[in-house]
C-alpha cells in the first residue's frame, strides 16, 4: 500500500465543511456561566479605583472578580516559557503578567475585571457598569522610542524598557572591521511591521471545576493542551497536574497565536472553583485584535558587505524587537534564537553578528506568528541581497547562486555548520532557484520588463531564497538556549483486538490535517487500510503527553514518535506471529498486513496477531499480552527546509496600484506524505506572506490606541488580491528523522514577503529609492513615483 506520497482527501474536512466541527465555543456544560472582561481603553493608565457596586446589582450577575481578588489569592500571573539573558549575563527582566491588573494598565485591552453572569449579554451589560477611574499616562508603542531616555516606563523596575539585550555570532569588532574594509556595503534600515494573527476562530476557554471529583477541566482553543496544563499547574495556580484535564477540541486556526498560555485560561479555571460553576469566555473579534499575541514588529538596521567579485564578506544586524507590555510564553525566543540563528541563510557569509534589544512598550504582547523569527531573518537577508544586486549592477539570481552553500546530504557529507550556532541537516540550494528561473521564464521576463518601459506600467521581479529551522526541537539544544520546556513529542499506538488502530498523538491539529497525514503514515507502515486508523489528539486525559503544534514540527517530531511506536508494535507482533507460524522471528517478513515465513506461503494476518495478543491462549511464553506502545521522540537536530520564491508585480504609474501578476514558489520540505496538504500549507503561507507585504499592519496612534482594530480597517489579504500560485518542489530528505520530512507549515510565509517587496523595488529601480515600508500600499508607491 502506498498512502505516503498520495493526495488523500482530508478525512477531517467532512465535519468542517458540514458545520459539524466542535470548537470550544460550541461546548455547553450544565450550569455554565459566561464571562466578559472589563478591559482598559487606555494604553497606559494607573488604576485609581474600581467600583463594581452598580454592576453587581445588574440582572443575572453571578460574581465579579477584580485584580484585588486575584492579588489576594496570591496568583502571580502567567509566566514566560523562555529565558534569554542579557549580554552581561544578567537574567532577563520578567515583570509579572497578572491575570487581572490592579495597579496599572499597560496596554489597551489589559483586563481589569472579570464579570460572570448567567448569559453573555448580561455579563456584557454588567461589564459596562463597572466604573474604573484611571489616571492616564503617556504611552509608548514604538520599540526604538521606548529605549530613549525619558520614554514612558512600562514597568517601574525595567529601566529604559529593556527586557534584555542579546547578541550572537562572530565578535562584533571582527564583523565591523570586515564591513569597513569591504568593496561594497549595502545598508538597509527597515521596519518589519506588526501583524495581527487573526485566526478565524476567536480564542475561547471554558473552566470547569467538578466538585464530585475535585477535578478541573479546561476546554481551550489551543495549539498545545499539555503545555497549557503544565504552565497552569506548575506556574500559575499551583494545581495538582493529575487533577487537571486540558482539552483543545477542534481549533479554527492558530498561526502561533494559540500556542501561548493566556490569562483568560487561568481566570476561568480559578474562577470556576470560586463559584463552583463552569465559566465560558469567548473573545469578541475586537478583543482578539487587542489581546491575541501579535507577530513581527522589528526595527532593524542591517549591513551586508561584499568583495569586488560579489562574494559576501560579512553581515551585521541590529534589531529593536517589540515585546509588547508583557513577555508572552515564547516571546524572548522569537527575535533571538529563531531569528539571529537564521542569518546565515543559504550563503557562505564567513562573518555574522546580530544584536537585539527586546523592548517593552504599551502594546499587546508580541510572540511567535507563522514562521516566528525566521520570516524576519529572511526578510532581512533577502531584502539585502536584492538591494545589493541592484546597487552593484548584478543580477540578483546570479549573485545568490554565487554565494550559495555547496550541496550536502547530511549522510555522506557533514551538515553545514553556520556562524550563528546551527548545523544545517541537508541542503541543495541551487536547484530551487534554477527551477524557479525556469518556471518564470527569466530571460523573457527581462525582455517584457524592458518592453514595458515608457508605457504606463512598470514591471518588477523579486527573489527570495530562504532557509528555516523547523521540527522544533532537540530538547537539550533548546534547553541550553533558555527554553523552560523540552520539545520532544509523544505518541501511543494502540492496536485493538480486531486489528483496528487508535493513535494518540501529542501534536495538535488546528487546520493542518493531522488526522489524514498521520493516518497515511500509520496505514502505510502497518500495511493496513487508512480506514482502520483513528488519530486522537488534543485531550490531556486521552493523550499521555505532548508538546503540541508549532514551528512546523508535527510530522517531523510527532510523526516520528508515531513511527517509533509502530516499530515497537511490529516487533512484538512478529514474536506473536512467529509463535503462531512455528517459525523464528528472523525468518519472517512483514508486508501488506501479514507476516510470512520467507520463501514459503505460510503467513498470518495482522488481525490474527492482534486478536492473539488480547486472547493469549496460544501465546509465546513470557511475553506480555496486549499490543499497545508509547514512544517519546526527541529530534537529533532541527530540520532545515528551504526554497525559492519569485514574485512578479505590475505597477500602474498613474494610480500607484500594484498587482501581483505571478508568484512562483519552489520549496524543499524533504519527503512529502500528502502533496495536496503540503500544497495547501504552501498556498496559505504564501497568502499570509504576501498579505504582510501588501495589506496587513497594526497602526497605533499617539495615545497607544490600535487605530485599525476591526476588519473595516485592518486589511487581510483576499483571494482577489492574489494570483494563482505556481508551485513546485525539490526533495532533499531530512537525514535524521525516520520519515525524512522537514515540515511545510511556515515555508510559504517565510519566503514570500521579501520576494514581494523586492519585486516592487525592482519595478521602482528608476526612482532612486532603497526601501519602501510595508505594507506597500498604492499611496506609498504613488508617492515614490511622483516624488513626494
Amino acid at each position, binding site marked *: 500500500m502506498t498512502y505516503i506520497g498520495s493526495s488523500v482527501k482530508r478525512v477531517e474536512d467532512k465535519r468542517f465543511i458540514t458545520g459539524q466541527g466542535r470548537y470550544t465555543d460550541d461546548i455547553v456544560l450544565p450550569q455554565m456561566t459566561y464571562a466578559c472582561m472589563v478591559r482598559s481603553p487606555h494604553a497606559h493608565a494607573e488604576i485609581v479605583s474600581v467600583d463594581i457596586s452598580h454592576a453587581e446589582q445588574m440582572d443575572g450577575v453571578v460574581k465579579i472578580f477584580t485584580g484585588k481578588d486575584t492579588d489576594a489569592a496570591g496568583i502571580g500571573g502567567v509566566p514566560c516559557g523562555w529565558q534569554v539573558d542579557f549580554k552581561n549575563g544578567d537574567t532577563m527582566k520578567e515583570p509579572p503578567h497578572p491575570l487581572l491588573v490592579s495597579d496599572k494598565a499597560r496596554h489597551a485591552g489589559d483586563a481589569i475585571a472579570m464579570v460572570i453572569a448567567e448569559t*453573555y*449579554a448580561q455579563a*456584557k*451589560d454588567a461589564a*459596562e457598569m463597572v466604573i474604573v477611574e484611571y489616571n492616564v499616562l503617556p504611552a509608548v508603542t514604538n520599540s526604538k522610542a521606548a529605549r530613549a531616555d525619558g520614554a514612558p516606563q512600562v514597568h517601574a523596575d525595567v529601566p529604559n524598557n529593556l527586557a534584555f539585550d542579546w547578541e550572537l555570532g562572530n565578535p562584533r569588532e571582527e564583523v565591523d572591521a570586515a564591513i569597513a574594509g569591504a568593496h561594497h556595503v549595502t545598508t538597509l534600515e527597515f521596519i518589519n511591521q506588526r501583524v495581527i494573527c487573526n485566526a478565524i476562530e476567536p480564542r475561547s476557554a471554558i473552566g470547569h471545576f467538578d466538585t464530585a471529583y475535585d477535578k478541573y477541566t479546561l476546554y481551550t482553543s489551543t495549539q498545545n493542551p499539555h503545555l497549557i496544563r503544565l504552565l497552569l499547574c506548575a506556574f500559575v495556580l499551583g494545581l495538582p497536574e493529575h487533577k487537571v484535564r486540558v482539552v483543545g477540541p477542534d481549533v479554527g486556526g492558530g498561526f502561533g497565536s494559540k500556542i501561548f498560555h493566556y490569562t483568560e485560561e487561568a481566570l476561568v479555571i480559578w474562577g470556576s472553583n470560586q463559584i463552583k460553576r463552569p465559566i465560558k469566555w469567548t473573545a*469578541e*473579534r*475586537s478583543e482578539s485584535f487587542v489581546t491575541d499575541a501579535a507577530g513581527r514588529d522589528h526595527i532593524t538596521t542591517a549591513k551586508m558587505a561584499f568583495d569586488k567579485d560579489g562574494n559576501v564578506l560579512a553581515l551585521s544586524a541590529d534589531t529593536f524587537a517589540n515585546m509588547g507590555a508583557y513577555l508572552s510564553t515564547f516571546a524572548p525566543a522569537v527575535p533571538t534564537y529563531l531569528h539571529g540563528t537564521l542569518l546565515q541563510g543559504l550563503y557562505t557569509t564567513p562573518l555574522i553578528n546580530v544584536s537585539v534589544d527586546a523592548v517593552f512598550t504599551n502594546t499587546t504582547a508580541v510572540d511567535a506568528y507563522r514562521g516566528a523569527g525566521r520570516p524576519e531573518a529572511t526578510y532581512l537577508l533577502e531584502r539585502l541581497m536584492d538591494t545589493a544586486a541592484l546597487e552593484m549592477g548584478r543580477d540578483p539570481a546570479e549573485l545568490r547562486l554565487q554565494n550559495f552553500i555547496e550541496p550536502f546530504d547530511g549522510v555522506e557529507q557533514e551538515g553545514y555548520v553556520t556562524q550563528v550556532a546551527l548545523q544545517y541537516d541537508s541542503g541543495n540550494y541551487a536547484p530551487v532557484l534554477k527551477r524557479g528561473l525556469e518556471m518564470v521564464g527569466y530571460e523573457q521576463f527581462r525582455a517584457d520588463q524592458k518592453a514595458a518601459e515608457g508605457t504606463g506600467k512598470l514591471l518588477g521581479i523579486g527573489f527570495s531564497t530562504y532557509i528555516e529551522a523547523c521540527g522544533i526541537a532537540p530538547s537539550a539544544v533548546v534547553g541550553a538556549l533558555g527554553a523552560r520546556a523540552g520539545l520532544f513529542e509523544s505518541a501511543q499506538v494502540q492496536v485493538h483486538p480486531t486489528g483496528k488502530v487508535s493513535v494518540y498523538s501529542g501534536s495538535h491539529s488546528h487546520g493542518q490535517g493531522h488526522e489524514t497525514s498521520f493516518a497515511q503514515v500509520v496505514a502505510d507502515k502497518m500495511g493496513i487500510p487508512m480506514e482502520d486508523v483513528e488519530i486522537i489528539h488534543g485531550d490531556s486525559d486521552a493523550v499521555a503527553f505532548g508538546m503540541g503544534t508549532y514551528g512546523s514540527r508535527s510530522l517531523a517530531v510527532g510523526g516520528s514518535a508515531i513511527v517509533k511506536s509502530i516499530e515497537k508494535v511490529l516487533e512484538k507482533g512478529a514474536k506473536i506471529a512467529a509463535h503462531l507460524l512455528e517459525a523464528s522471528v528472523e525468518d519472517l517478513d512483514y508486508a501488506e498486513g501479514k507476516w510470512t515465513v520467507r520463501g514459503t506461503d505460510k503467513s498470518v494476518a495482522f488481525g490474527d496477531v492482534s486478536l492473539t495478543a488480547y486472547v493469549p491462549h496460544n501465546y509465546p511464553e513470557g511475553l506480555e499480552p496486549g499490543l499497545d506502545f508509547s514512544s517519546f521522540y526527541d529530534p537529533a537536530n532541527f530540520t532545515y527546509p528551504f526554497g525559492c520564491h519569485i514574485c512578479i508585480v505590475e505597477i500602474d504609474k*498613474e*494610480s*500607484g496600484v500594484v498587482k501581483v501578476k505571478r508568484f512562483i514558489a519552489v520549496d524543499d520540505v524533504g519527503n512529502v506524505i500528502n502533496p495536496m496538504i503540503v500544497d495547501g500549507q504552501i498556498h496559505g503561507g504564501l497568502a499570509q506572506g504576501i498579505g504582510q507585504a501588501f*495589506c496587513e499592519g497594526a*497602526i497605533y496612534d499617539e495615545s497607544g490606541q490600535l*487605530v*485599525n482594530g*476591526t*476588519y*473595516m*480597517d*485592518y*486589511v*487581510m489579504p483576499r483571494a482577489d*488580491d492574489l494570483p494563482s500560485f505556481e508551485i513546485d518542489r525539490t526533495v532533499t530528505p531530512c537525514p535524521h528523522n525516520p520519515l525524512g520530512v522537514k515540515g511545510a507549515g511556515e515555508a510559504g510565509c517565510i519566503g514570500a514577503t521579501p520576494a514581494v517587496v523586492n519585486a516592487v523595488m525592482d519595478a521602482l529601480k528608476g526612482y532612486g529609492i532603497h526601501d519602501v515600508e510595508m505594507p506597500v*500600499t*498604492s*499611496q506609498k508607491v*504613488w*508617492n515614490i513615483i511622483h516624488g*513626494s
Partner: protein
Amino acid sequence: MVPSKFAYHKPSTVKEAIALLATHGDDSKILSGGHSLVPVLKLRLNDPEHIIDVSGIDSMGGIRDNEKSITIGANSTHGEIANNAALKEHAPMVALAASMIGDIQVRNFGTIGGSIAHADPAADWPAVLLAADANVVLSHAGGQREVDIDQFFKGLFMTAMGEEEIITAIRIPKTAFNKNSTYVKFPQPASRFALVGCAAAISNSDGYITEARVAFSGVSATPFRDSNVEKSLKGSVLNEGSIATATASVADGVSIMSDHFAAEKYRKHMAGVYARKALSALA
C-alpha cells in the same frame, strides 16, 4: 459583539412605522437590512432602546418600472437592484454599483434605503444617486414628500430626513444620461467601501454632450457632484482630449477626507484618475 438590550417592533405598514417613530423618537432606530445598523449596535457605538424593523412593510419593497422613472422600494436589497433588468437597461450605473457593494451576503441583505439613510460618505450609493438625478421619497405622518438628491446628503452621516420620516422609495428618472452611465470604484482595501467612487452619466445629441453628471463618493464628507467637470464637458465631444481637460482639476475647492489609506493629496489625484476611467468607459 452583543448589542445592548432593546425593544423590537415589526410594523407592517408605513403608517404604523411612523407612529412608532413618533412615540419613541430619539430612542429608536429604523432597521431594514441591518448592514449599517447592526455593526454599530454590536460594537455598542449606538444603543437605541427601540428597534423598528421596517423589512416587513410590503409597500417599501419591489422595483417598479414606470413610464418616466423607475421606483426602487427602500427595502430593495443591493442584490435585487444589481439584477434588475429595467435598471440595467435604463440606468446601468445603478445596477453596476449595486453589484460592487460588499459581498454576496451583504448584497442579499443590505438595502438601498438603509444605506442612504445611514449616509456613509464612502458608500457607493451617494455618487450614483447624485449622478442619476434621483429623488428620495420620504414618508411622514402627514403624507410624503420627494427630496431632490442634490438636497439630500448634508454631511458625514447626515441627511435631509426629518426625525419622524422614513425613506420609502428612491426614484430614478428614465433619462438619456442615465441610459449612458457607469460607476467605477477605488476600494478601501479592508472594507471595500469607496476611497473614491465615481459615477458618470452623459447624454449626447449629434455627438455633443447635452448633459453631464459626474459625482463622487468617498472623496469628501459630503458626497458631491463636480460642477467644474460637468460644465467643462457640456457641449463638447466626449473623447480623450475633452476628458483630460474636464478632469484636470477634479474636486477643486472641495474639502477632501484623509486617512492612512489615502491622504488628501492622493485621494484628490485618484478622484481624477477614476473620473477619467468612468468617462473613458462612456466615450
